[in-house]
């Protein structure tokens, strides 16, 4: 049973909601009996000439093999509500406890400091709003970098709407935090919480978390680190009080986030009361997915150093070759202090959405922070804060299934795709 089969069967046209389980189960049984590749896979393959190359791990990495195994096993064993008092519930409770201990051990934190959430977004919302609530007697100011993920910025907007205030801290052209400005901002009176993304999800620049944490510690301001792009890939720097992560970024299932609140941190749940997850996340957790998240985190972390060593040179190659082979392109982000798997560039005079569609037609799945692809029509706040070209923007992010051949094919086809779009728009000689 491959991932493609599941995707293929679920994405096939269906009559209605009720048709999903029956068709899905029937499909799997047929296929397992026959022991052959499914027609859906053949159809999928038939629609694209070369095999598709998925290069958007920073949005969602393809599931690690451990994810699938753990998810299926935990569906059989972990469907009951862990809060009940019968045998099935005790089994589910054991699985939940084991998942928490495994995830905590991988991150080097205590199990009672870690809660599971329904997404990285929900975890970031909890981190920001709960961190502010816990220190509302100190003040109502949230300091954050200008390049936080929208989950953090949207929580900040809510805080402002409710009478709080924010202090965004700028970054330089490479997307690195302005440390002197940060230190001054956290020193100001009334700062309840500071938020810093561990590494930019849009351009890959790694932030000076340890230095920023030191500045916070000097004045007793807790630091929230959004670790969505680093957890499971690179070590998380020390010094934070609250840490969040997202399982589908490391090859875990979608719909699981981590919220870690260090002992002694003043944090108060911003949600209506609920006893689950030590009162930090309301509602029952998706236990099979949580188990898969914890198991895949351990697997990803075990391979992380080797994967980083394999992917970083491929990212170097993309940075160098895109700059050399595509005219009028700006490769953005810090060339040295950056994530091993993510690279971003902007192509002058090219419409970002048209570029993504053209690449998709050739089988390349990439994403963009460009204005033209977002529903709001705002330029990416990250590229804006860096002062770099925001149109024609492409983010390429690699994962454990990415091969050198995939990267070579992308590099071979990209210059032609860009040239074609420029020729169509009549902007070749500008």
């Amino acid at each position, binding site marked *: 049973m491959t991932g493609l089969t599941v995707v293929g069967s679920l994405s096939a046209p269906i009559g209605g909601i009720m048709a999903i389980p029956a068709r899905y189960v029937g499909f799997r049984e047929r296929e397992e009996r026959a022991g052959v590749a499914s027609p859906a896979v053949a159809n999928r393959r038939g629609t694209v000439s070369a095999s598709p190359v998925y290069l958007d791990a920073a949005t969602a990495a393809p599931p690690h093999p451990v994810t699938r195994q753990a998810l299926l096993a935990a569906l059989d064993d972990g469907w009951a509500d862990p809060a009940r008092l019968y045998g099935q519930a005790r089994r589910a409770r054991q699985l939940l406890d084991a998942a928490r201990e495994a995830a905590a051990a991988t991150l080097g934190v205590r199990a009672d400091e870690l809660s599971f959430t329904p997404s990285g977004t929900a975890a970031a919302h909890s981190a920001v709003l709960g961190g502010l609530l816990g220190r509302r007697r100190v003040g109502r100011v949230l300091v954050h970098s200008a390049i936080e993920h929208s989950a953090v910025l949207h929580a900040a907007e809510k805080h402002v709407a409710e009478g709080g205030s924010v202090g965004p801290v700028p970054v330089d052209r490479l997307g690195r935090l302005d440390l002197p400005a940060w230190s001054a901002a956290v020193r100001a009176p009334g700062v309840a919480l500071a938020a810093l993304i561990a590494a930019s999800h849009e351009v890959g620049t790694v932030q000076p978390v340890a230095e920023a944490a030191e500045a916070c510690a000097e004045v007793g301001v807790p630091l929230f680190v959004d670790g969505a792009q680093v957890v499971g890939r690179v070590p998380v720097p020390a010094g934070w009080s609250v840490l969040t992560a997202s399982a589908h970024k490391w090859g875990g299932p979608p719909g699981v986030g981590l919220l870690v609140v260090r002992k002694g941190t003043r944090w108060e749940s911003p949600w209506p009361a609920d006893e689950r997850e030590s009162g930090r996340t309301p509602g029952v957790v998706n236990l099979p997915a949580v188990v898969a998240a914890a198991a895949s985190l351990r697997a990803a972390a075990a391979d992380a150093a080797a994967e980083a060593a394999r992917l970083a040179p491929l990212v170097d190659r993309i940075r160098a070759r895109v700059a050399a082979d595509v005219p*009028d392109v*700006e490769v953005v982000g810090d060339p040295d202090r950056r994530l091993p798997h993510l690279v971003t560039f902007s192509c*002058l*005079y*090219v*419409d970002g959405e048209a570029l993504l569609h053209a690449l998709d037609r050739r089988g390349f799945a990439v994403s963009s922070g*460009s*204005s*033209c692809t977002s529903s709001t*029509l*705002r*330029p990416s706040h990250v*590229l*804006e804060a860096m*002062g*770099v*070209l*925001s*149109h*024609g923007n492409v983010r390429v992010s690699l994962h454990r299934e990415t091969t050198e051949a995939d990267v070579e094919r992308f590099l071979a086809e990209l210059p032609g795709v860009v040239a074609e779009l420029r020729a169509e*728009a009549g*902007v070749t000689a*500008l």
Partner: protein
Amino acid sequence: MTFPDEVLDCRGQRCPLPVIAAARRLPELPVGSVVRVLADDPAAAVDIPAWCRMRGQEFLGTVTGADGPGYDVRRRH
């Protein structure tokens, strides 16, 4: 404030069109000329200065008038 030699009305156009308009027109004017690009796509606020940096032209600044934001660019070479 500089008085522009020419105004390009790119209101209603999405990036990269305002940048392309500036890139087409500027080289046709004498060195030292100033073009004001009127553009209501917020991405222009990022992309016109970025284009100036990439092309070695001078970005003079943003003026906000009744016509919405205008971006002043001087031809340097």
